[in-house]
């Protein structure tokens, strides 16, 4: 046998004594790595939108928005209101979680007025006749340093009367 190079230990570096588990550790970690894209495909890290519903005697509300997003991404939230009864002064009230660390790119159609009510964003939508629906689109971008979990409650008012409330949450991944 040729002279063994310095610092090489045959038992360890050729016969791999004491290193038998290394390959399994590596394979295990590799499996863990493969799990990331699988979980991503399952929408664990966003941003596939989902639908949340709420219904009351006067109206139905459907919010189509992602529950998980990542920082920097653009996303849309769609608010679909169906008036079961006449809504004279429909107002959509959004919890601060909709705006915290988010850039609102556009709101279409533009509400007749916007104001703050107890820290919430209040959007006056005007009159929605009975049986008709109102579709409001909001386009957002997640600010890069926005990370965490936020409540995005949506309330629908007719004047000062609360018609319904819908609970929605969003998780922002870094």
């Amino acid at each position, binding site marked *: *046998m*040729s*002279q*063994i*190079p310095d610092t*090489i230990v*045959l038992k*360890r*570096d*050729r016969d*791999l004594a004491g*290193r038998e588990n290394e*390959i399994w550790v*590596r394979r295990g*970690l*590799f499996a863990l*790595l493969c799990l990331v894209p699988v979980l991503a495909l399952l929408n664990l890290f966003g941003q596939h939108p989902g639908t949340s519903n709420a219904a009351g005697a006067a109206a139905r509300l459907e919010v189509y928005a992602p529950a998980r997003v990542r*920082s*920097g991404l653009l996303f849309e939230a769609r608010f679909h209101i169906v008036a079961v009864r006449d809504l004279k002064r429909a107002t959509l009230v959004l919890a601060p979680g909709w705006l915290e660390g988010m850039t609102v790119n556009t709101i279409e159609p533009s509400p007749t007025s916007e104001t703050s009510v107890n820290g919430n964003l209040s959007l006056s939508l005007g009159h929605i006749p009975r049986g008709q629906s109102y579709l409001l689109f909001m386009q957002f971008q997640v600010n*890069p*340093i926005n990370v965490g979990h936020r409540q995005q409650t949506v309330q629908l008012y007719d004047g000062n009367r609360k018609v319904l409330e819908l609970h929605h949450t969003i998780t922002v991944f*870094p």
Partner: protein
Amino acid sequence: MDIALRALFLYAFVVFVMRVLGRRELSSLSAVDLVLLIVLGDAIQQGLTQDDYSVTGAVIAVATIGAVQVASSYISFRSKRARKVIEGEPIIVIQDGGLLETNLKRERLTADDLAEEMRMQQIASFDEVAWGILESNGQISFVKK
């Protein structure tokens, strides 16, 4: 602060990925490996500085990665156990002209890969090789008979 944290996390993640992928990808530059390195770099950049185009942001990112790099090399220098984890250990793949199939299989190396490396080091035949060692940096060193 977030850039420093992102740099720290991404550095650790890339080291983890490179260790898991195996040492051959560290040194070889086949078409597939080249794509991996380019895509890795580009993907990391997006997550590292995001929309920060400032010089300050770049300085923070580079300084953090530089500091972590020195820290990890210091830890490797001080601790043999850490060195094994961070850098890996050499593996003998040829002894006295004979291929060690178990070790080759473990590192996803073929006889053709070895022959190619040997040719690049002006070695024509396995018979000329006393020791072939896959080093921890992914390169293969050959000790002639």
